[in-house]
């Protein structure tokens, strides 16, 4: 019994991490490998390419549908993120610091809206947007994106702000700092990591959106990358260029990987802050 357990625990110590890494990276490596296969050699039924090529990346960057989708995705996601983090910061500050009736209700509302099925909004928005001219525009996506980036930011930021030692502001003022100095030198550095974390999580959500992207756009004027990927066609309408789609998929995964590499600790803290005390 004891021997089996120690063998098991040794396997857990060394094998566990290897298993986790294999699980997380395997499909990513697969799509990277696909993106380097020539379109003609994509059916080699092997994991790795027989010959490596950059042709797919060239194709993708020569496809206006993709380059405009990339631009749309970047700006729409960033604008939705910045707007919701700004509104959420003010609200979360009030929730963390002030005593007023209804603040629990606001947090519950945020949680309820974060759980909302996006598809339920698509029909009415499709109808309203077409009549007010927001269909197939950036703003027409930024607004629905805020339906999930805003509650998420409020939730994350309230959890973060609750942990900030706000007394330090008064302490600084007693030591002779003006209220502005106290705010700028004490509160901003304490609050900034939380705000930044909320922004990363909100950006991930906006970047990932698919439902609104395919329903509320029709041309490359506003169509974001995930929607463009799903509608990507090759030379003929019926050909789905797997290798080119893979190259495009790799390109849009790069920002995610960069953010994860740079801010791993903050993302983990932000993900768990809203749900469980981390």
């Amino acid at each position, binding site marked *: 019994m004891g021997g089996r357990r120690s063998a098991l625990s040794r396997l857990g110590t060394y094998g566990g*991490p290897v298993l986790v890494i294999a699980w997380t990276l395997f499909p990513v490596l697969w799509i990277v490998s696909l993106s380097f296969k020539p379109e003609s050699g994509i059916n080699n039924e092997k994991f790795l390419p027989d010959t490596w090529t950059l042709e797919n990346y060239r194709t993708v960057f020569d496809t206006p549908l993709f380059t405009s989708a990339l631009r749309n995705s970047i700006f729409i996601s960033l604008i939705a993120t910045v707007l919701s983090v700004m509104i959420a910061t003010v609200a979360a500050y009030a929730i963390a610091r002030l005593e007023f009736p209804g603040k629990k209700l606001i947090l519950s509302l*945020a949680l309820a*809206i974060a759980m909302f099925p996006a598809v*339920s909004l698509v029909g009415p928005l499709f109808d309203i947007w077409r009549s007010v001219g927001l269909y197939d525009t950036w703003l027409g996506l930024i607004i629905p994106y805020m339906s999930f980036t805003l509650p998420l930011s409020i939730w994350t930021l309230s959890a973060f702000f609750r942990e900030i030692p706000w007394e330090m502001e008064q302490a600084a003022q007693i030591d002779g700092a003006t209220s502005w100095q106290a705010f700028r030198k004490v509160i901003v550095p304490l609050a900034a990591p939380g705000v930044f974390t909320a922004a990363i999580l909100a950006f991930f959500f906006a970047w990932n959106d*698919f439902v609104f992207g395919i329903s509320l756009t029709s041309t490359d004027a506003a169509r974001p990358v995930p929607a463009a990927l799903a509608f990507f066609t090759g030379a003929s309408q019926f050909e789905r260029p797997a290798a080119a789609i893979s190259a495009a*998929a790799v390109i849009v*995964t790069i920002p995610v990987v960069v953010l994860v*590499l740079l801010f791993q600790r903050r993302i*983990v803290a932000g993900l*768990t802050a809203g749900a469980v005390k981390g």
Partner: protein
Amino acid sequence: MTSTVTAAPAVGVPVTDRTRNERRLGWKLTAPAVVVMLAVTAYPMLNALWLSLFSYRLTDPGAREFVGLRNYGVVLSDGLWWQTVFTTVIITLITVAVELLIGFGFAMVMHRIIFGRKVVRTSILIPYGIITVVSAFAWRYAFALDSGFINTWFGLGDFAWFSERWSSIFAICLSEIWKTTPFMSLLLLAGLAQVPEELQEAAKVDGATWRQRLTRVTLPNMKAAIMVAVLFRTLDAYRLFDNVFVMTAGAQKTETVSFLAYRQMITRTALGLGSAVSVLLFLTVVAIAALFIKGFKVDLSSVRGR
């Protein structure tokens, strides 16, 4: 704990100016957030409720006519609706159960990790951050007859995964599980961190086996975290859409409730009927949340450590 400047007024004591000002400021600062949240969800949802009472197709707006609850009757008496509900429930049950098991394993690995802590935590965030559509394409191409390697690796010959219902559902579940297990495992990891180390040590001293410590100490102490993780993931899984769209487009009876709503509203532009499906989807999600919060006593405020 919140470090509020003033304490809540005691019963019977008149509200002071300061309290009143604080309340007013609180409402002012949260007003934009509340207004935006209601405008982007409550308003369209009420609009969907309204549209669902009409027979209304965008292609024929002149024929728009009030039909009361007839759309709901049409949806609920249609075998297709129940088939999508069945598919969605099956996929939700499978994915959440498997994610809970694998996620718990991953959380244990991350909790006890000695070397490579940072590498593991970084790599586990990649599926979380990756676009669902990208994950769906990766798995679709892996299973595909022409470009895939899975049949070669497992000696399955020319088995067409996407030509049958259950093998399609298997592929969809795999993509969903791959992408969302990291989220589950991080929530569970936070729960594991809350289990008092002294209890583990005490149980060890008392001669408890590994299994006894797991079932008597670890699991009961992280029950709240497990329930929250399961609630979050269940609600998320029930709205499954992206993977189905990319991998099968609803073929081989893999259509989910979200996909049905989308197809009615956007593809068929039957806004009335589609809205009825949307409202039913929304009500189901509310029912699931209520079941967890009331039935299983998931207390969201207590686990947040206030």
